[in-house]
């Protein structure tokens, strides 16, 4: 548990330090702005799937809202 949280923290710090090869300029977000490039483009589908799986399997959790998208405003 401790190792896992350290891993997450490390990855977060890498992201924050602005890994120079990762990321795009604000005007280069045309692809990321599309609906199909969102982490959760069809929330109803995911809701129905998760409902089926959590009632048939023992696991739960993981998904969340996040970033990406057009980065506007």
């Amino acid at each position, binding site marked *: 548990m401790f190792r896992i949280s350290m891993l*997450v923290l490390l990855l*977060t710090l890498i992201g924050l330090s602005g890994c120079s090869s990762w990321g*795009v300029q604000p005007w280069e977000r*045309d692809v990321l702005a599309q609906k199909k490039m969102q*982490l959760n483009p069809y929330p109803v589908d995911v809701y129905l799937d998760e409902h089926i799986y959590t009632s048939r*399997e023992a*696991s*739960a959790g*993981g998904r969340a809202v996040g*970033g990406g998208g057009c980065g506007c405003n």
Partner: protein
Amino acid sequence: MQLKKPKSIRSALAVATCSMLSGVSHHATAESTPWEFDTALLYYAESDADNDRVTVVEPVIRARKEIADEEFLTFRFVFDSLTGASANGATPQNTPQTFTTPSGESTYTTNANQTPLDPSFHDARGAINAEWELPLSRLTKGIFSANFSQEYDYTSMGLAATLSRDFNNRNTTLTGGLSYNADTVRPVGGAPEGLSPMPTTTAVKKTTIGSDLDKNVADLLVGVTQVINRNTLMQLNFSYGMDDGYLSDPYKIFSVVDNTGSLVGTDPYLFEKRPDSRARQAIYWQTVHQFTKDVINFSYRYYWDDWGIASHTLDLKYRAELGRGHYLEPQLRYYTQSKADFYYFDTPDGSTLSYASADYRLGDLDTSTIGLKYGITQDDNSEFAIRAAMYTQSSGGDAPFPDVTANIIQFNYSFNF
């Protein structure tokens, strides 16, 4: 404000002071934005080699509207109706077996060499969810939600809050979320005392521990989303959850057997008993990547909890654009879990147990889903889609319950109004 012979500094000051004095933050009402509706109808029908099992029909309506700059209200209404039979946890025997229903007022019999299924399952559930999303600053947003669901024997209500902040020119997003749910279980016939016998005739009533039991669920989530390049986005989340209260399934039993697998004693069926707390963790990683116009959406989740269950989930969707807004999206999901410490397919007589459950959903389990979605998106942002999938659940390890297969079909229609 007039200035004679303006020099650049003076004009800068003038602009600055004018904007300050005239009261910049005038919160004008947004021009009328439409409601975005997402509707869906799910049909789920499960069966094993011998019998039909649970059937679910589930309509969903989701409505979202932008009420001010980047501020949204979302409502979701779900209704699901569940009918059919579900495994009660007892093992098949080479003679017919008789069980009482949860109410204790009738019995049902299972044929020899068949998995015992309780046929009295029917339930209707309604759920509503409301969510408010708003910008807290230019780079931060908050999402606050409340949910409520009600079914015949179960009530749930909860609250959740999530905060997201962008860094690195919005290439990195950090998310933190908390949620809390307070549930009440009101089992039909009362909640049986764990490890007490299930009567096999209607003359005897089961021993109960109460009729209104609480269950609380708290979840914490932290995540980071990172734009990798123009075509790729990734998310990594860590979630931690705690369940507390009545966590057993009040309708599930297990069989007590001897070393040949035959039932033992006058009360060979005992109600299951699970611990009254559960601590769970999950790590979730998702990648979205576009090739020319097609998009691949791939995720992996590793889950583990203090009941001894650990699982891997792999989910893959590939959206192939067919042109003019039509697309085809095959979907694959693979899931494997290892059993809970207190899971027994059949419980040997003489074992002293604190907890025991024969619910196959807590056992060694492998599932796979294969599906295909076909959709048509139109210029006015409306979309119609149909999805068909086959979901197979089979026992892993040494728990020989039969494969259960479900056929799924779903219709989606999204539109603005």
